[in-house]
């Protein structure tokens, strides 16, 4: 695919989460959809403001867990009953109570791994390069103490001049143009 060129987004920097959330509300009201907020810590309000509500991490986690459970219990049963049935201490071949423990552990293992990696995958990470890093002030603040609102160029309602004026109306610290 051809490398995208030109403006990626307009990035407004805010001092406080409150300001950011407010700006986001405004932007959404103004009809902007393709936008994102960047904050140094989770700000749920901002997410709601830009209309992002539910995620699929839980589902991935659940599926992973069930797979783990089935895999281990199946393995144990297969080994003890079919692969090499042996008389161990006079216990039945299918000693399910004993098999529960490792199955339980693997449920958790697989669930945990799928939760973490599912999250990363859904977030599209790892992504060491991202246009927002081109913003001169982004890396100074985004991960420590500043709050950013970014209107993306792909948004139908986006045009450099209009959007810039809209953002400046939200009394940001600064508004910058971010190239790809």
């Amino acid at each position, binding site marked *: 695919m051809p490398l995208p060129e030109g403006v990626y987004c307009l990035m407004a920097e805010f001092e406080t989460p409150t300001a950011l959330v407010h700006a986001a509300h405004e932007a959404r009201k103004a009809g902007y959809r393709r936008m994102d907020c960047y904050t140094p810590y989770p700000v749920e309000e901002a997410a709601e403001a830009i209309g992002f509500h539910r995620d699929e991490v839980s589902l991935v986690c659940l599926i992973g867990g069930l797979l783990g459970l089935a895999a281990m219990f199946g393995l144990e049963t297969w080994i003890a009953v079919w692969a090499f049935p042996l008389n161990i201490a006079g216990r039945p071949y299918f000693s399910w109570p004993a098999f529960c423990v490792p199955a339980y552990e693997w449920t958790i293992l697989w669930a945990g791994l799928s939760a973490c990696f599912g999250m990363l995958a859904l977030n599209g990470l790892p*992504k060491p*390069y991202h246009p927002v890093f081109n913003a001169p002030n982004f890396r100074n603040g985004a991960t420590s103490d500043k709050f950013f609102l970014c209107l993306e160029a792909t948004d139908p309602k986006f045009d450099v001049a209009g959007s810039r004026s809209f953002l400046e109306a939200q009394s940001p610290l600064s508004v910058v143009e971010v190239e790809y």
Partner: protein
Amino acid sequence: MPQIFDRSSNALARMSLILTGLLIIALGLTLDALQRSPWVTRQGQRADQPVPFSHKHHVEGLGLQCQYCHTTVEESSYAGIPPTHTCMNCHSQIWTDAQILQPVRTSWETGKSITWTRVHDLPDFVFFNHEIHVNKGIGCSTCHGRVDEMPIMYAQNSLQMEWCLNCHRNPAKNLRPTSEIYNMAWTGASELHPVWCASETVNEGTPTAESVTCTETRPKQGVQMADLSPPLAGFHAQTVGTALDSQNTAPVELPAGLHYTRFTSQEALGVFLIQHYKIRPPRELTSCEVCHR
């Protein structure tokens, strides 16, 4: 503050993640293959021996019996490696000055053993017993392969535990009449090579080996046919006319009074032999003490 990473790094990052995963899988597969590879099992490897003894020549060519050299195979756990004396039986008359036989003559003169390298070498903690296998219908070639076609001896099979279990879990597929033990060419019963077996009632104390008479050529009288469905469920015989097989035209004389059954599948034959040779059930054959003590 500029970017730390180049655009390409995204792709790189993802690729490397995937690659790592693949590598781990590959490694696993390699190790799995390795543990079974000839490099570990020595399967099919020809050790360098003092004398390039050819089983092919001696067995196929000259038609020597296995027991001529491996004398104790039927009565001991150890089949036996022939003493130099056995070689000299013939080679004191023929090939008396062949260069390759020098080690044999040296051994004969000096009284020092010929030093062979063991080809079928089980670990010291495995106790294999030839005697019982041979007496219960496991032929030489089942484990050692077509020795009669090996110019230089090598291990046909891996001799690994899984290989042993393979048969101990289902002996039927390898059992053959004890009369065929030394038959290198034995391929088991099939439509092409049917086998006729008759059971004799032997009383306790008589070796089970004597409880079955088998032949590969169609006997004259009283032939029955093993019904092949379902093989492992044993078989119930049904009498059929003598006109059933075309390939064997020359009926041979065989001890009368026997009711022969025609086997055209190895499974059926195996089940028949399991019953008459009183082979122990898999649960007993796969118990650890059978091989490890």
